[in-house]
């Protein structure tokens, strides 16, 4: 079955998009909306088909991967790019969980979006998202990846602003798209930079790697290092946009305005990790650029720490998860920064499970509470929604790195690699470990506030609390199983290295340059466990007993908490929005007015001259005639007198 063509994988969700989009448009006129059964079936069918084909392909994939060039895309002088696909160890893993988790979340959404007016539209967007994400991951060159890259950004925009009646959602969507655009321009300029270095062929990943190997072999790295570093930095800016790292991270918390399945799929499991994927995909390039790598590590560290602290301050259950996502992404970037690309991809993999489970659980909680998102008004839900609670608690153990759960393996792996990365390693490790403690604190706070204690909402809302329907529960349970066991694909200390081995053919070359000293993994595991336990203990002490403050007004943090949370929003405001607004004001009010005045002046000159000429005009027709005759006479006389020599 390995002769399945690669283009089938993106084709399935594309067909789904077209079908569902057509249904959405056609049914938009009718009062009742489309039949949810059929739409739901179609919506799940295509992602599942894509998942099935990925599984089939993954089963019989040769070690060196499958390559397929479909057709030519752009062919102009100096620039030639094909539409081609590359299915290798890296894209296999990404595709497996993108389509797999995508299918599960689509299934979940059928229950979640039940009765919504835009039911078909929602699934059209979801399918379009899956198409873009598959293209992003499966593409064999940067330009096609960019197509997916902006495509997922577009879908994220559409889905955040899905309930577009509320302008707040639209603003959040706009923010997401524009901030992402800033990153995308980085990506785009990075591509241009690469083209200057080696022509348009090296936009292809294989050729890029070959090019770099040639550089190393020929010893020419030094010559192009500045340009390559610039390109690497520009690509990294693209990654910070898509993966919500400092400084382009402000959009992700706002993106929680979208439906919760969207937050789970796009803003936790798949899209936001595409930055990490890109770093890994271009690992060989990045491994040449020590400066860029250092920047990546520092940014990752700073982001992880900042977002973890910000997570402590949130009252909105989805915002806590959003900041935790940013923080976890910081971990992945740290790992990529020390050339541990396989570890960062492994964390992407495990994170997708437990974070999607957490989000879906949060969605189920919000669903049960009829839209309430403020944790201060929750509590005691363990008894009322036991399945949801169990799912979230398993995922919680995974994210804090409790021994045996998925996050334990991947996070410890990252911390271990950080420690061994070089002279600065122990410092990185210390901050990483501190962040892990904070992570445990805020996640424990979330669990305690939501599921333990007593219910703090109004009486009448308490009666409506119900467990989610089966279509929502099944995906959650599957994901929580993943959150428990996904770690065992790469449990070094148990000798399970399946994940590592499958990535080795792709990432081996990129990581070969970094010599990792051998350390005893047990110490790291112990310290990691200690961090998780310490965090849980602190949270229990602080939040477990004391009274939860009364919820008043909005769920947004206040005071110094707001200062911390919105630090980067403030920076964006002063460095981005206000200068542009001022520039626009100058252009509109000053320059435009000056130009209009100049235009008016030219017009005025013509007018004045015209008025002056008009003053010569005499009123009487006969006098005009006489004057013209006299003029002719004078002309004739002049010609006669001068003999026509003038």
């Amino acid at each position, binding site marked *: 079955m390995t002769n399945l063509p690669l283009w089938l994988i993106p084709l399935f969700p594309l067909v789904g998009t077209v079908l569902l989009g057509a249904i959405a448009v056609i049914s938009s006129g009718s009062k009742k909306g489309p039949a949810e059964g059929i739409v739901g079936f179609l919506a799940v069918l295509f992602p599942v088909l894509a998942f099935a084909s990925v599984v089939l392909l993954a089963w019989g994939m040769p070690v060196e991967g499958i390559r397929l060039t479909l057709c030519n895309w752009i062919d102009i002088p100096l620039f030639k790019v094909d539409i081609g696909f590359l299915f290798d160890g890296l894209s296999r893993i990404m595709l497996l969980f993108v389509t797999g988790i995508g299918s599960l979340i689509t299934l979940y959404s059928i229950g979640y979006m039940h009765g919504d007016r835009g039911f078909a539209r929602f699934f059209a967007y979801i399918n379009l998202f899956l198409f873009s994400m598959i293209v992003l991951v499966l593409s064999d060159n940067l330009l096609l990846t960019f197509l997916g890259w902006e495509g997922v950004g577009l879908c994220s925009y559409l889905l955040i602003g899905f309930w577009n009646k509320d*302008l707040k959602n639209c603003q959040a969507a706009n923010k997401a798209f524009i901030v992402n655009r800033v990153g995308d321009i980085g990506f785009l300029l990075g591509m241009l930079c690469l083209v200057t270095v080696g022509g348009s062929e090296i936009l292809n990943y294989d050729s890029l790697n070959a090019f770099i190997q040639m550089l190393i072999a020929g010893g020419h790295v030094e010559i192009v290092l500045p340009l390559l570093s610039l390109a690497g930095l520009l690509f990294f800016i693209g990654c910070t946009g898509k993966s919500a790292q400092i400084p382009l991270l402000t959009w992700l918390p706002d993106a929680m305005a979208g439906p919760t399945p969207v937050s789970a799929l796009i803003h936790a499991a798949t899209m936001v990790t595409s930055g990490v994927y890109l770093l890994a995909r271009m690992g060989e390039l990045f491994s040449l650029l020590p400066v860029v790598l250092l920047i990546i590590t520092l940014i990752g560290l700073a982001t992880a720490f900042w977002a973890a602290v910000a997570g402590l301050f949130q009252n909105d259950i989805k915002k806590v998860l959003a900041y935790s996502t940013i923080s976890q992404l910081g971990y992945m970037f740290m790992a990529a920064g020390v050339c541990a690309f396989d570890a960062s991809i492994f964390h992407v993999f495990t994170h997708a499970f437990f974070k999607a489970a957490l989000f879906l659980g949060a969605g189920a909680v919000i669903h049960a509470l009829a839209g309430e998102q403020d944790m201060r008004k929750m509590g005691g839900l363990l008894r009322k929604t036991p399945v949801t609670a169990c799912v979230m608690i398993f995922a919680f153990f995974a994210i804090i790195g409790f021994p045996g759960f998925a996050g334990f393996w991947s996070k410890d792996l990252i911390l271990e690699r950080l420690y061994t990365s070089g002279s600065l390693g122990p410092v990185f490790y210390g901050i990483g470990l501190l962040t892990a403690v904070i992570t445990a604190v805020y996640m424990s706070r979330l669990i305690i506030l939501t599921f333990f204690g007593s219910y703090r909402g109004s009486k009448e809302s308490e009666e409506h609390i119900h467990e989610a329907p089966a279509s929502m529960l099944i995906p959650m349970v599957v994901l929580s199983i993943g959150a428990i066991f996904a770690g065992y694909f790469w449990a070094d200390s148990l000798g399970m290295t399946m994940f590592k081995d499958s990535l080795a053919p792709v990432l081996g070359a990129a990581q070969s340059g970094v010599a990792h000293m051998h350390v005893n993994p047990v110490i790291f595991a112990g310290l990691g466990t200690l961090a998780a336990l310490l965090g849980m203990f602190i949270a229990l002490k602080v939040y477990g007993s004391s009274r939860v403050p009364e919820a008043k007004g909005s769920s947004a943090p206040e005071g110094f908490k707001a200062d911390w949370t919105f630090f980067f929003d403030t920076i964006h405001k002063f460095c981005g929005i206000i200068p542009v607004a001022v520039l626009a004001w100058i252009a509109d009010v000053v320059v435009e007015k000056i130009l209009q005045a100049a235009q008016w002046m030219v017009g005025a000159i013509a007018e004045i001259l015209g008025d002056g000429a008009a003053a010569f005009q005499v009123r009487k027709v006969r006098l005009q005639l006489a004057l013209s005759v006299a003029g002719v006479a004078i002309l004739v006389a002049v010609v006669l007198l001068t003999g026509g020599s003038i």
Partner: protein
Amino acid sequence: MLLHLLVLAPFVAAILMVATSKEDPKSSSRLAFLFGVAFFAMSIALVAGGNQATEPMEWFRIPGCRGPVYYYLYSHGLGAWMVFLSCGLSLVALITARNTFEKNYRNFAIGIFALMGAMNGTFLSADAVLFFFFFEAMVIPAAVMIAGYGGKERTKAAMTFAIYTLVGSAPMMVALWYLLTVADNSLLLSFAIALQGLPAETQFVILLCFLLAFLVKTPIFPFHGWQAITYAEAPAPLSAILTGAMSKAGVFGFIAWILPIFPLSMTVVNVMLWLGLATAVYGALLALRATDAKKLLAYSSMGHLGLAVAGVFSLSEAMLPAVLVLLVAHGISAGVQFYLAGVAERMTGTRDITLMGGLAGKNPVFSTLFGFAAIMALAVPGTAGFVGEFTVLLAIWDMGPFPAVVAGFCLILSAAYMLRFVQKVIFGKQAREYEEGKRMTALEGSAFGIMVALLLTFGVHPAFITNSLHLFDEDAIEEMSKLSGQEGEAVEGAPADSLAEQSSDAAEPAEEHRPMTEAEIAQLDSTLAEAGFDESERAALIQQMIAADAAQANESAQANVEATENE
């Protein structure tokens, strides 16, 4: 034949339209639709047909000028695509105008056909004077239609538009006339040759005259005063044509006339590049603050065209296909956006975007198309806009990273204003109760849908556009040089021999003297024979010519030697 039809038949169609009823748009709209479809089909045939040319016909001679003005049409890929835009957008304009103007549809259609003919003429002329004729002729139907069908300030808009653009191209007319007095004829090749022989200052002045006309028409930053008010006040279908096709005449002029004719200095190129980039930024900034839907789109068009001009003057090898894709993409996407803005205006009764909103719930099909069109304008990959903007950025990168960064900044701004536009128009709650205007009809909707689909197609497979591009092929150059040659002969045949002497002197500036070839001598012989000279006379004349030729060759060789010594 196709070329003649595309240029002349629209005028015939305009005249035929007079026969239909003025009051009742039923018959006139059908006829107009049929004509529109026919022209659109022809334009597709033109694009598919590759390069073609008509027989050059002498149109008129200006006293004091050396050569005639030809009626000579030539279609290269660039012009053909522009004609495609002009015919396609006109067709959609005819469709959508049917629902906008209840009465007087006929006169609008007449105007559209006249405008279409003039635009096609502009894009297909191979003769500079013919080009200029159509270039100016475009303004008149457009201005009349603005004055007749525009918004509240239509008279002011029409006046501003007509005066600004006509005054802008007046210097070009003078420059053309001057060039005609020194060149063999008004074709591209002879202009280029004639310019080589002029002193640098004169060249520069002529260049400025040409540039000004195109800068105003595009428009580029300091000369954009007419644009916003014109696009805002013009009826939406006309605005779509103005921005989608007519404004391309400026960029087309840069590519098809300025670049081949003028030897450009690096300063000029840099100035133009930065003017283009400044326009791109400036248009985007103004669009951020605009509250009038059509003004916003006008500024956005200005931004995109600024980028295109910057791309043209990157002079990169990739420039031509890149700019062409950008132009086609912008033509279609800006066109469809103007049409949709017109529909929105019809439905809400206002152009002010702060007073709109909530159309998504009210009219989902319209809003879907509106959103799609905005996404196309954003240059999301997979759409033609992306291919255009990316490749233009690639071309600009050739001039250095900094211009490319500025261009990238424009892309960010374009996302900001476009999303704001979408949000204000179709999202949110309905701001107030709208007076129910006419909703979007199925025909309109499918026309817009086809335009969007075209953008997607070109985005995935831009080869449709890039492969059809061969600016001037060998045949055309040969034809042109043949015409120049003919002209020389014709002048020699004239009684004033001194004139002939002068012309051959001017045509071949001092640098290099080409000795007469055998073929030329034979040709001269046969011409003389036809003119009625007998054997001996002919032999004597030819002897004389060859001797003079040799003397001249000596002279010029000496001059060259001297010149090198001086250096």
